[in-house]
């Protein structure tokens, strides 16, 4: 059998890979296993590709223990039910506030707008709802009547004004309560603990990085030292060799000279 050329059929590369990964049809396996003992090329390549696979095993992807949202907890990527009740006490947006609070705020806005627009909104069971402008204009001067003066009793305050005041207070209390909840000391403590954890984690990472760098430098210097030693050794060998050659030449010259001197005598 020829040791330098493979005689397996045309799909040899595919079969070799299939055999390498143990993902092969039984008939192909049988044929390839029968071929292997006689083919040095296939055996060598199979060993080499197995070594490559061993090298590939060293390539670890960074862990995602911290969550794929980065340093956020692992639950960073989760589907949450938008209809589920929120545990959080703070309202991030107006839309998250309770309905009664929204209604009260809307009424406040309407009342304030009416005031700004100088509109008078009155309601009486007999006249119904009436809207008039200029209610804040100063009243015309009253000329005293010569007849016996009948002083009109001061008009009673509108009932909606009292309701409005109550609503306003309620809204303010609600807002204050929410503000107090978000400023709770527990929140501060948790934030502080989180910051502290981040700082500690950063310090640990830096220490690890430093240790690694030191190790790398040590290794590089060791490699460099070994390379230098090899060079020195080689240079010394060269010098010794050239010195030896020089000594031999000198010896030969001395011998030649001695022979000539003895011949002349």
């Amino acid at each position, binding site marked *: 059998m020829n040791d330098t050329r493979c005689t397996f059929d045309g*799909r040899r*590369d*595919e079969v*070799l*890979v*299939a055999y*390498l*990964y143990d*993902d092969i049809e039984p008939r192909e396996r049988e044929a390839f296993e029968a071929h292997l003992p006689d083919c040095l090329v296939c055996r060598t390549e199979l060993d*080499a*590709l197995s*070594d*490559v*696979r061993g*090298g*590939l095993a*060293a*390539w*670890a*992807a*960074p*862990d*995602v223990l911290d969550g*794929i*949202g*980065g340093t956020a907890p692992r639950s960073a*990527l*989760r*589907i*949450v*039910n938008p209809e589920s009740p929120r545990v959080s006490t703070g309202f991030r947006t107006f839309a998250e506030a309770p309905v009664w609070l929204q209604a009260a705020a809307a009424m406040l806005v309407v009342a304030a707008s009416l005031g700004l627009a100088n509109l008078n909104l009155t309601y009486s069971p007999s006249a119904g709802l009436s809207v008039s402008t200029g209610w804040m204009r100063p009243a015309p001067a009253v000329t005293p009547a010569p007849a016996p003066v009948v002083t009109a009793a001061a008009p009673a305050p509108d009932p909606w004004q009292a309701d409005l005041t109550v609503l306003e207070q309620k809204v303010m209390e609600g807002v204050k309560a929410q503000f107090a909840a978000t400023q709770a000391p527990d929140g501060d403590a948790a934030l502080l603990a989180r910051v502290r954890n981040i700082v500690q984690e950063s310090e640990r*990472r830096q220490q*690890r990085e430093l*240790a*690694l760098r030191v*190790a*790398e430098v*040590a*290794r590089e210097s060791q*490699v460099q030292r*070994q*390379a230098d030693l*090899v060079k020195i050794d080689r240079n010394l060998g060269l010098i010794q060799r050239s010195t030896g050659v020089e000594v031999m030449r000198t010896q030969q010259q001395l011998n030649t000279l001695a022979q000539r001197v003895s011949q002349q005598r």
Partner: protein
Amino acid sequence: MTSTDEELVARSMGGDHDSFNQLILRWERPIYALAYRTIGREEDARDVCQETFLRAYRALPKFRREAKFSSWIYRIALNLCRDWARRERRTPVVQPPEDMDLIEMAAAVGPSESIEDLVARKDLTARVELAMARLPDEQRTAIVLKEYHGLTFQEIADLQGCPLSTVKTRLYQGLSVLRREFAPSPGRVA
């Protein structure tokens, strides 16, 4: 008792968010590893991983249950990786993770591994990353799916949309290139 992917998918399709979250928990590591090894950037791999699950969640009603969930999610991730490569118009950049916990890796292996071995292992990892980054996309993806995710040749062929024999050829060619890359250079001092 642990539910199968198929059971979790069925419950997710019925509106059970917890079941889909279990699928995320089960598959986020493999998908992230696939994205990282395919595009080579930690941050981008995270984005791809998140986007993969978001797309899967949105497309869940269209999911045909005769297909494997893993194959489906791998396909989404690979498409996103391909989009990323097109968008970036460049080959994967090998970038060691910022917080590569080699010390912890060493601790996980055991105290017997010296710092020398650790650094040597890091060297090897860097060489593998570089060599993989130089491979053509199809070869690299085939190797990643086979080597690190244990997919069958047929599954890879389905994902890559090519014949079975092409997958084997891509693997053979890719591994042969890596073999040359990993071969010790003659001038290297031991």
